[in-house]
Structures are given as structure tokens and as C-alpha cells.
């Protein structure tokens, strides 16, 4: 009778310990993921390649700040280059998920037609549209 009772207690303890282990495992996993995604990563003299609607786009900057999984900020002199255009600017924000890049700093764009200078830009890569705001000058090649 006593042995039977002890075995039940041991079984209950084992089950309890297993449940505690699950809790510990679950609680350990969740905060780790949150902390990782909120962390800002900064890299200096950065260059990389991004696959987007325009194909392969090479990006680079004096300093790259990873804001979160979908947003990066190219601080200082920065560029985006692909087969369609070369954008040279400063302080460019990129939303990788929506494929939008923009900057409120003066920008120079070289494409097959010529050299474009503007005060700011917003590039909707998915739609194939680039908006240039303010005074714009586009010198056309031959």
C-alpha cells in the first residue's frame, strides 16, 4: 500500500518536473527572440546585394544601421546600383519588405538616358517608379 502510494507520488513529481521543464524552455525561448529582433546592428563601410523587382541591386554606405528585419538605414554617403540605375545619395532608408527606398537629401541618378540631379527621392521598386521632389535637372546624353 505504502509502495503503491510512493510510486504515485514519484510519477506525479516526474510529470510536474517535465511540465516545469516545458515552462522553462518556453520562457527561455520567447524573450531571446524579442531581444534579438529589437537589437540595432551597425556596420561601417558596408556593401551588399539585394534581390528585388529590378533584379540584383547593389547597396552600400559609410554606415549601415539595421533598424529591424524589414528596415535598414544607409547613413552617410550611400548608393544603390542595378541594371536600370545608379543612385548616389546620403542617408537612404530602405524598406526591404515593400521594396521602397527614400532620402530627403540631394541625390544624383545615372541611367541610360543621362544624369539626373534632385533634392530628394522615393523609389517604389515594385512599381518601377521613382519620385524626385523639389528642383530637378536631368541632363540628357546624346
Amino acid at each position: 500500500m505504502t509502495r503503491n502510494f510512493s510510486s504515485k507520488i514519484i510519477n506525479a513529481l516526474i510529470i510536474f518536473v517535465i511540465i516545469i521543464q516545458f515552462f522553462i524552455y518556453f520562457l527561455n525561448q520567447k524573450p531571446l527572440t524579442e531581444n534579438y529582433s529589437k537589437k540595432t546592428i551597425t556596420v561601417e563601410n558596408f556593401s551588399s546585394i539585394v534581390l528585388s523587382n529590378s533584379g540584383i541591386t547593389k547597396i552600400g554606405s559609410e554606415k549601415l544601421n539595421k533598424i529591424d528585419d524589414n528596415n535598414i538605414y544607409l547613413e552617410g554617403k550611400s548608393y544603390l546600383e542595378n541594371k536600370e540605375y545608379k543612385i548616389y545619395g546620403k542617408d537612404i532608408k530602405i524598406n526591404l519588405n515593400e521594396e521602397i527606398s527614400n532620402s530627403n537629401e540631394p541625390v544624383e541618378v545615372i541611367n541610360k538616358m543621362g544624369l539626373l540631379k534632385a533634392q530628394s527621392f522615393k523609389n517604389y521598386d515594385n512599381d518601377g517608379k521613382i519620385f524626385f521632389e523639389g528642383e530637378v535637372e536631368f541632363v540628357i546624353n546624346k
Partner: protein
Amino acid sequence: MLLINKLIFSFLYLFVFFNANAEGYVKAGDSLIWDSNNKSYTANGDVEFKNDKFIAFADKMIANYEERNNDEVFTKIELFNNVVIEFEEETFKGNYAIYTREDNIIKLVGDVSIESPTRLLTGSELIADIDNNKRILNSANNESLVEVLLENNAND
């Protein structure tokens, strides 16, 4: 001394070469949109466009282009509101203009005028054939076609 002369000559040659190759420009006061899917540029606000034929001013411009031999060239230019086009000694004015590169024809509509050093003509539609040096000025009615001789001509 000979080397200096060569350098100066090379510099002048390069200067002339690069300027000769600059076909034109687009300037906009407010914004410019490059739509690579539809192959067009839309310029807004005090727009100025220059090519090897003429210089144009308007409030808005839509320019279509196409790819030729790995280059992109404008094929159609549309100008909206307060359109002024300067071609050699002539000035065309209207509310809307369309230029097609293929036939080198400028068509203007809406309160159109064509001004040269000697005269001013007004109407409702102007077709300027640049290659054949031909101008056709149409009017909505007989009264709207006006020819004015300018002072330079009157003194002749």
C-alpha cells in the same frame, strides 16, 4: 612648349566633344517622376525641355521614351498649360502641345499663336512640320484666324 599646345588642344577638343554630345535637358521646379514600367517621365512646375530641335516651357510635361541600341531616346513629348516653344526665330504658344520625334512635327492646340520677327499669327490649332519647314494654322471659325504684322516688318 609643344606638349603644352597638345594639352590645350586636347582640353579644347574634349570640351567641344562633351558639349556637342549633350543633346538636351529637362528641368522641373516641383517634381519629376520616372516610370520605368511605362517608359515615361512626368515633370511638374516650371518645366523646361530642350532637345537638338527646340526649347519648350510649360507647367507640366509627359515624355515617353524607348530603348534603341542600348540607349534610351524620347519619342513623344506632351506639354500642358502655358506652353511656349522656341524654334529658331519662331515662338509657338498654346495650351497643349505634342511633339513626335518620328516625324518631327509639333502640334499645338488652344489659343495658339506663332510669332516670328516679322509677324504674329493666332488661331486654335497649329501644326509645325520642322523637317519640311511647313506651318499649318487652323481656326475654329473664320474670325479666330488673325495675322498681325509686327513693327520690324512695317518699317521695311
